[in-house]
């Protein structure tokens, strides 16, 4: 994909990059839009054409991924991994607790077997 030349193109790329909840995404998007408008307007006041002003404003702002990593990413890959690990650990702990109880019940309910006094 070629580098964006206009604020509109840049914002389209940003919109694709942002991995945030809808409300957050809208806010970041609006902030960036206003920033680029300010920057381009300042350059126009300095004598640049609108097209050149927008192009330079985008260059000065930097790539969309600089901004896309913002505001707490919500369900990131790392976050999902941590969550799954915790759930897995909880399940294993619960399973081990249940299995111990089951073994105890088998010993008690099998009178023909020698008593296990080892505890």
């Amino acid at each position: 994909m070629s580098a964006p030349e206009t604020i509109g193109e840049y914002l389209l790329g940003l919109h694709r990059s942002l991995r945030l909840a809808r409300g957050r995404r809208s806010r970041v998007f609006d902030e960036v839009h206003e920033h680029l408008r300010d920057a381009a307007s300042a350059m126009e006041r300095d004598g640049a054409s609108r097209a050149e002003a927008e192009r330079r404003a985008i260059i000065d702002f930097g790539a969309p991924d600089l901004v896309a990593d913002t505001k707490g990413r919500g369900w990131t890959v790392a976050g999902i991994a941590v969550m799954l690990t915790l759930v897995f650990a909880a399940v294993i702990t619960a399973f081990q607790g249940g299995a111990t109880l089951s073994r105890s019940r088998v010993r008690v309910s099998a009178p023909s077997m020698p008593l296990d006094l080892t505890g």
Partner: protein
Amino acid sequence: MRGVAERINAQTLKGHLEALILKALEPGPAHGYAIVQQLRARSDGTFDLPEGTIYPALHRLEKATLVKSRWAEVSGRRRRVYTLTRKGKAQLAAKETEWNRLRDGMHAVFEGAR
């Protein structure tokens, strides 16, 4: 405006950007573009980083409750304006103290060796 060699690059600045933003907000509320302009002007062009990097830093500061933000009308347009919180002011004071100690220590080492 300083030349390329005289500008501090973004990587070097990265660890200090949040403290600089807190300082830029000390006089009063400002939106992201204004903060960038202020940093550039007050540093005489030394701090000239990609402007977009200001937003992740602002949002981290807000998450840490060092700044707060709200929508406000500025020059007829809706802008997100950031303000230092009380906690942010305390953090700024702590960072300034830390920086002054570092500066004095560095100066003592560099100058004292002569």
